[in-house]
């Protein structure tokens, strides 16, 4: 039952808050159990194993398409990692418990978001995940967190205003907010200025939510300032679902990848890829570098989406499959990096890369897994990130966008450059004075690291199986 994925977290929040003290200690097991349940549920629905999936129930109609399943799986994995991080880093029990509840709510919001097929419902669930995120970022009430949360809140409110305006315009036009009705109605008069304005407003909102340059101002601040668990969840999946997933879904199934939309996505994607990587290159805060890297990687996804309507059908399929695959991969490796950043921050007491060095000797698991994640991000074969980038770049090339393809390859080098610099400054090199007493992080941080690294490796190695059974069907449009 898909609606369970929304209802169980809601019930969990209500139950855990009954006035019984022992219930609070069940928060972590409950969250892990739920994440595992959701992962299994999503895997069961993946294209390879889904032959006769239920497609209709009371609240969610037509939900179970491959894109949704992939996102559900990613949400489960990231939620799994972030509750562990929360367990390891929460400053006291009360804070930790509040954050558990908020993570549950955010997960419920995201699950609803990826399953709804209605513009306004999408807005609601998007807002649930976002509100939970604002609170998670500000939860420590330190100056940085508050600043990041406020910027995120204002920009996000702006984005939702744009989306709502668009919804209102579409409502006036076709009297409904359901994807199907809107898509059909748009098909009839798609090139009218009024409808284009509506589409543009919605796209603008989604671009803010995805953190595409130049709509991204809030993103580095929010990611860098958030507490460890919050940044893991938000960077790993919240912006990916509220922004990128919604963008993919709407462009493919509602607005249609028209020439102008494709051009826009390519241009903004290219700007994000390059400028994000350039900005990441000069950072000294580990999480801020990861945040800019996130912008850059989302740029790739958007570029892949930008060939969705190409005349070359194969390129279009490849581009969309690559975008979705990269979305999944990015969720995994960015989460892994944020988990490791949390481990470093917890163990060494700082995220400033100028004060770190040689930690790989002291924290072998963290060092190794982050190296793996960075190689995956930069697209080193045979890790997962390589294949998805390859698909995107191949699609760009086949669709005739040679310049964009070359840009993608070039930015890959920049990615490798800043990540190698991170790796050298944090994990390799001489052990810094002051880092002598650093130890490997506890199980709560190493377990998710290892699990995520195993997924990265497994997806990369199992690609030949995935490509036929999972990736190409995912396009599903």
């Amino acid at each position, binding site marked *: 039952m898909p609606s369970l994925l929304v209802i169980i977290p809601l019930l969990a929040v209500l139950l855990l808050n009954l006035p019984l003290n022992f219930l609070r200690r069940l928060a972590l097991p409950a969250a892990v159990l739920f994440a595992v349940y959701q992962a299994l549920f999503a895997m069961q629905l993946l294209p390879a194993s889904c032959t006769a999936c239920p497609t209709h129930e009371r609240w969610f109609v037509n939900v179970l398409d491959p894109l949704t399943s992939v996102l559900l799986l990613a949400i489960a994995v990231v939620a799994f990692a972030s509750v562990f991080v929360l367990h390891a880093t929460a400053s006291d029990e009360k804070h930790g418990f509040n954050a558990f509840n908020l993570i549950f709510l955010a997960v419920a919001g995201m699950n609803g978001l990826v399953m709804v097929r209605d513009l306004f419902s999408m807005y609601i669930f998007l807002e649930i995940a976002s509100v939970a995120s604002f609170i998670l970022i500000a939860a420590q009430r330190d100056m940085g967190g508050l600043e990041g949360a406020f910027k995120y809140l204002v920009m996000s409110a702006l984005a939702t205003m744009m989306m709502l305006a668009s919804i209102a315009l579409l409502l006036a036009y076709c009297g409904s907010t359901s994807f199907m009705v809107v898509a059909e109605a748009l098909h009839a008069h798609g090139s009218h200025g009024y409808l*284009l304005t509506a589409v543009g*407003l919605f796209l603008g909102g989604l671009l803010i939510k995805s953190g595409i340059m130049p709509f991204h101002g809030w993103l580095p601040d929010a990611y860098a300032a958030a507490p460890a668990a919050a940044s893991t969840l938000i960077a790993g999946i919240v912006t990916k679902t509220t922004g990128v997933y919604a963008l993919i879904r709407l462009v493919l199934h509602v607005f249609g990848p028209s020439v102008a939309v494709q051009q826009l996505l390519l241009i903004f994607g290219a700007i994000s890829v390059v400028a994000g990587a350039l900005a990441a290159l000069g950072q000294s805060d580990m999480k801020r570098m990861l945040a800019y890297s996130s912008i850059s990687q989302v740029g790739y996804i958007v570029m892949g989406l930008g060939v969705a309507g190409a005349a070359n059908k194969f390129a279009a399929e490849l581009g969309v499959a690559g975008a979705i695959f990269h979305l999944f991969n990015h969720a995994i490796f960015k989460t892994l990096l944020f988990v490791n950043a949390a481990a470093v921050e917890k163990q060494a007491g700082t995220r400033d890369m100028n004060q770190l060095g040689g930690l790989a000797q002291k924290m072998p698991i963290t060092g190794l897994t982050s190296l793996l994640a960075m190689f995956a991000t930069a697209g080193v074969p045979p890790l997962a990130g390589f294949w998805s980038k390859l698909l995107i770049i191949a699609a760009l090339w086949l669709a005739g966008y040679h310049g964009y393809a070359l840009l993608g390859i070039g930015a890959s080098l920049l990615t490798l450059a800043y990540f190698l610099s991170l790796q050298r400054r944090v994990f390799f090199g001489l052990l810094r004075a002051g880092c002598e007493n650093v130890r490997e992080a506890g199980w709560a941080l190493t377990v998710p690291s290892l699990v995520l690294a195993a997924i990265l490796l497994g997806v990369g190695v199992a690609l030949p199986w995935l490509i036929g059974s999972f990736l190409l069907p995912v396009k599903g449009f």
Partner: protein
Amino acid sequence: MTKLMYFAILLPAVISLLALGTRKLGKVCAATALLGAVVNLVVALKLFLAPAHAVHIPWTSWGLDFTLRLYPFSAFIVLAAAGFALAITLYSLPFMAKREHSGLFYFQLLLSVAFANGAALADNLILLLFFWEGLLITLYGLIAIGRPGAWKSAMKALVLVGVSDVCMMFGIALAGHYAGTMTISKMHLVLTQTGPTLAFLFLIVGATAKAGALPFHSWIPDAAVDAPLPFMALMPAAFEKLLGIYFLARITLDIFALTPGSWCSTLLMTLGAITILVAVMMALIQKDYKRLLAYHAISQVGYMILGIGTAVPAGIVGGLFHMINHAMYKSGLFLTGGSVERQAGTTDLNKLGGIARLMPVTFICFFVTACSISGVPPFNGFFSKELIYDGALERGGIFYAAALLGSFLTAASFLKLGHSAYFGKLSEANKGIKEAPWAMLLPMLTIAGFCIFFGVFNAVPLHKLIIPALTGSSFGAAHVEEIAKTHLVGWPVSTLLVVGTLVVLALALLNHFIGVKRSGSGIGAADHIHYAPGLHQAYDAAEKGWFDPYEIGLKLARALAAVTWGVDRFINWVSDSLAVGLTAMFSYIVRALHNGSLSVYIWWALAGLVLVIVFLVKVN
């Protein structure tokens, strides 16, 4: 029976390893080498007597099969190579005894024998290439163990032969592509299409360069000075001629049916004629026993290429006959040079003179072989040259004239060499010279004897060796037989050719006397040609290496290196300074733009929104 061919390749290789193992033991090593040479000769003899057959081991799917083919031609080459190998091993026993690296010398000698046998027997082009390249390695090694500093010559040889071998590889690839097989005996290509012609040209480059023709020849004179002398008698004089001309014959007779009228034939003849003339002109002015011989080793290849290039039966038979003859007399000549070097301590013609009385046997051997190379009847060189003249005349007077001119200059240079080395005034320093030891005389005498035998009884080698070798080629055996009956038995048929040759020889003698009279010494006998107006400038240029492809290549490479160094520095600057600097600058700009102000970020988003909407409305 089939195993015999494996023995021919493996036995020398195994014994060479034994020689390598015992290289510190001096005489044991030498004995091992002698044993190896004897065993090899026995195997070669057995092969020669065995009926023609082939072995085929499929190996890879893409054309590399282990295919060996024994037929009269390959058996003949293996036998000849084995004979020279034994003679030269024997000769080396005293010659190399006191030298460094003698163990390595024997090791590489035997390894060369193995490779040469393999190359002769191989019926697969890729397999052939393997053995061919193996010979290149031993060539390098054998030159490099000569006197100190010989590695420069070795490197030169490696580069020049290596370049030609790359051409050959390309040719092999092309030929295999167009023929659809790598088996030589199954390849039949025609020279009317561009692709096969290209393959032919590349293969020709490989074969003729191995034989030592222009323009890949210039390592030979340098190696003559630097390498141990038996090497010269073995490789450039014997093995490389045998294999190079053998492969050339297989290209022109088996793989491609070269026809007399084709431009490829004319090209080959031109290459032959130019090689004859240029090399012999250079030989004429040499003042060193070994260098002079080395240039002749190049020049005589021209005759063979000319003969085979004629594509008429007389020329081809003559070319192959000249190949075996040349291998004999040139080895013999190098060996006499070796005895002179060993006994007199020098090969500089200025320091030699009048040693004929002190080394009579050596002189006799020299006389016989020199007469052979000059084409004096009734020595073997005369008969093979007559056949080549016959073929050349059939194709055009100009080639005949060039060959005759070459003959004249050859005779002149050997008159000069014999005069200055063996006659004239005996210097004080050379008074104590003694005859060489028997182990060195025996091979020389044997070779000289064969020179006479192949001359007087020329029908024997022609009918027993050359004509069977051509059987099975595109020339029908009967056709060759017929030509042999009418043309080749005993005395050459055409009296005109004989008269021409005799006139030329007489002129050479006359020229020699004029030269001696003018300069007053035997060594200056060619000076009037050397310093003739117009010629001496050319000679100066040649001596400076202006025509040496290796020197030109080196200069080009240096210039190119300078250019690439500059380019590399520039790229280095671009990548190290400019790119990093630009990236850092852009990175700084991007970071400076993120000034943390919320209103700026809102501005960006709103501007982006306006952009999106305007773009969407405008583009649609």
